């Protein structure tokens, strides 16, 4: 099936992540390393879409995991999804570094003009065959034409495999808005995809 890697992400989100989280709360340093290895790439890939500065994203990930270790003994609640928890924390750190003078809600209302304006590239999409490639190019163009919110929602759903509820937590908006954004994004994409003839 073509959504294999999503499946993998989902099961990791609920299984390994949570197990490691609990070990971390118990003070196991190795769990911190394993969490870092497990989530570094997805966090980076998300962060770089928010701020296109490698150093800032890397530092933010460092800050996130160091803080996790500093507070591990007081983390007495287990998040529904470790991935969603880490993504929202990273997002918060990055927004703070984007404009540290603004308050949180103010920041969210304005949804900083330069955040998530970065386009996706060929590299971001899975391509399995050459005939696939043509289709992907068209899909990519369509994804990049979506608005920022739709783009981010789509990315959180299809790259990170988050549920609507988890996406709502990450973006600090309600679940219905997530659903609407996703619906609109899918509608835009589907119109374009179905107009391209299927390969084979």
């Amino acid at each position, binding site marked *: 099936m073509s959504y294999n890697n999503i499946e993998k992400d989902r099961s990791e989100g609920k299984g390994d992540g949570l197990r490691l989280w609990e070990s971390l709360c118990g003070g196991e340093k190795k769990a911190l390393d394993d969490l870092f290895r497990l989530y570094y790439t997805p966090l980076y890939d998300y962060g770089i879409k928010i701020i296109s500065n490698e150093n800032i994203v890397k530092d933010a990930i460092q800050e996130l995991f160091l803080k996790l270790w500093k507070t591990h003994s007081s983390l007495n609640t287990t998040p529904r999804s470790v991935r969603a928890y880490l993504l929202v924390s990273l997002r918060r750190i990055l927004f703070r*570094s984007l404009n540290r003078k603004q308050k949180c809600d103010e920041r969210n209302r304005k949804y900083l003009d330069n955040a998530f304006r970065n386009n996706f590239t060929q590299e971001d999409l899975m391509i399995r065959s050459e005939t696939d490639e043509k*289709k992907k190019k068209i899909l990519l163009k369509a994804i990049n034409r979506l608005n920022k919110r739709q783009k981010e929602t789509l990315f959180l759903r299809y790259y990170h495999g988050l549920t609507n509820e988890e996406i709502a937590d990450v973006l600090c908006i309600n679940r219905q808005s997530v659903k609407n954004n996703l619906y609109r994004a899918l509608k835009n994409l589907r119109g374009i995809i179905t107009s391209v003839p299927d390969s084979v």
Partner: protein
Amino acid sequence: MSKNEEEIERLLADDSFVAWIEGSASEKEIAKWRAWLENDPARKQILKEAQSFHGEIDFKGSRRPEVDTELYRLKEAVDNFERSAERENETAIFRIHHKTSYSNVAAVILLLVTVLSIATFINPPEVYQSDSLENAPRELITATTQNGQQKALALSDGSKIILNANSSLTYPSQYTGGDLEVSLEGEAYFNIVNNPGSGKRSFSVNVPGGAVEVVGTKFNVNTYDQTTEVVLVEGRVDVKMRDRLSRVKDSYVMAPGEMSRMSLPDGTINTTRVESDMYVAWTQDKLVFDRTPLAEVAKRIKDIYGVDFQLNDYELRETLVSGSLPNNNINVFLNTLENMLERPVTNKNGVIILGEQKSETNHE
């Protein structure tokens, strides 16, 4: 037709449906969707299309190459944090010592040696031990630091002060509890313990033209300039500007995350919100910049290492620097800066010269 078209996106925006086609749905959900499927023969086709479209949008995440080096960086930061936490614990033991009898002295001395040898790795601290000299006259001691040097001072109640480079801190040689007054020139980070058991005591830092009064708190004071900057991390402090006759000209009660600038020429206090972590990063041997003009970075380096930057070009002065730079050694710092700016950076007899840019790379 149009109804079906619409339904596919609706279905894919539904968590339960997606869980079902991805195989992670609960028994109950599976039953629900099976029933949905059997209810209408046309739905078989809808399901097929939904699955195919769902599989179409597929992002890949290839493992980042720097995972291991970044993990190494994290481990170092964790180690650093734990070392400083250990140091704090040991300071607390000093406090207990003052009430104990002679039989414990050997152990305490051993402990003192351990404290010194652990801390010497980074900076030799001066352990400021209280009431050890009951009869000594009350006099003032000044701790000073040179270029690129830092000093850690521990108070017997667990409070600690870290003195940044080119700074001096004057404090009484003897401290038997109660109010404490110190004077600062340069920059220092204060972590003052608010000990409810020992009753209210005040701690104040005298700076040119004013004072910072503290209850129990973490804050940073920088007097390198004509303007004293106080950044509050935790707790509460009062900042006061005074005239020559010690009359209060301006005062402000700071909240965490604020920076007060006490301007000596105007005798006024201006407060803004800042990211306080950035201002205390030097205590962890880092300098953190976030879209900071190079001219300001240069000033910071001058304060710490006593070296001047040659920045004649206006555009160069306004170049924004973001990121975290190592601050335990000026050469390492300059190397990192060189990589960041993609310009050769050379140190000629204490003057830093920036060469021509190596490539056309854009850096914000």
